[in-house]
């Protein structure tokens, strides 16, 4: 199918969000603020990694149709350079403090849930099936991250300040989630992709409700990074991704062709 390279690109966007955010959450393992929380956050990371792998498996099938045999999940995860990654800028941002991590998680989870909800109705059966399965997991993710946003926002003076700072700092990466480029436009028209632009209103309302309970101020909508067709989805990343991949890929790349 002519559209396969575009579909491949689109599915990589979904896959890379999972793989990259899971990689970030993996950095927290053993270092969380409480043992229970350490375990819980790792579950989110494991879910996202699992979802990333499901999307990568589908990406391979698509790629195999026009460039057989298609790259496997490890070739895609470990042998692509930064410019070939298609994740949102938001998910590659460093962990920072727990407020930074939770703010990043909530802003993403809320969008992710809505996106997967829309994708569950995709005309592409594979996309619909993966989205339905992932959606169940993500419903729990957003419950947790919204809960922490509220607890930290409306906790102590210090936690409130840290949460507000985190939200303010990450806000400029949220616009990219709703920016629709030519690849998405074509797939939306075909009923395959979700129309991300249509999610912006509901996402804002959901985020505003949580911020309200968290006593957090909604940041002003200034300039949005990567929202004009030159962002993570197009392979133009922040400096953080390169360092993350250097670490993530080092063993796999040091032993070309090895099996693990």
């Amino acid at each position, binding site marked *: 199918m002519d559209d396969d390279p575009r579909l491949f690109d689109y599915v990589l966007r979904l896959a890379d969000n999972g793989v990259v955010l899971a990689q970030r959450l993996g950095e927290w393992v053993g270092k969380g603020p*409480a*043992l*229970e*929380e350490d*375990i*819980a956050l790792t*579950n989110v990371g494991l879910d996202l990694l699992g979802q990333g792998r499901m999307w990568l498996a589908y990406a391979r099938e698509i790629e195999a149709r026009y460039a057989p045999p298609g790259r496997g999940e490890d070739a895609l995860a470990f042998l692509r350079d930064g410019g070939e990654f298609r994740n949102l800028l938001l998910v590659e941002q460093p962990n920072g403090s727990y407020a930074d991590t939770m703010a990043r998680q909530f802003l993403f989870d809320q969008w992710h849930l809505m996106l997967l909800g829309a994708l569950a109705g995709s005309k592409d059966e594979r996309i619909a099936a993966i989205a339905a399965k992932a959606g169940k997991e993500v419903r*729990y993710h957003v*419950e*947790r991250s919204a*809960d922490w946003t509220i*607890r930290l926002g409306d906790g102590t003076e210090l936690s409130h300040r840290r949460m507000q700072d985190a939200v303010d700092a990450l806000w400029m990466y949220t616009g990219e989630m709703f920016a629709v480029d030519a690849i998405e436009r074509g797939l939306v028209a075909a009923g395959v992709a979700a129309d991300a632009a249509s999610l912006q209103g509901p996402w804002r309302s959901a985020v505003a409700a949580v911020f309200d309970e968290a006593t957090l101020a909604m940041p002003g909508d200034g300039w949005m990074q990567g929202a004009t067709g030159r962002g993570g989805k197009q392979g133009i990343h922040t400096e953080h991704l390169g360092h993350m991949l250097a670490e993530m890929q080092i063993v796999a790349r040091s032993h070309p062709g090895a099996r693990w």
Partner: protein
Amino acid sequence: MSSEWPLWEIFIRSQHGLAHKHVGSLHAVDAQMAIRNARDVYTRRNEGISIWVARSADIHASSPGDKEALFEPSNDKVYRHPTFFPMPDDVKHI
């Protein structure tokens, strides 16, 4: 050090229709967090479909089975936690 998160007892009902069973405990600031943490700590392998949580401090227990006065309980709380008496480091073998 600030005050500690309260301890909760966790009860889980598995898929086989049996009653909720005590599986262990954990720390959380409130019931909602206790339920979420229980899901992550005690059902990592799909062990359960329903979770009950109760503050350990709110659970009252019967006396141990033995009738002998020897085994009379010092109190009726199952979990008498920070009541232990720390010993100075220099005091050995007591």
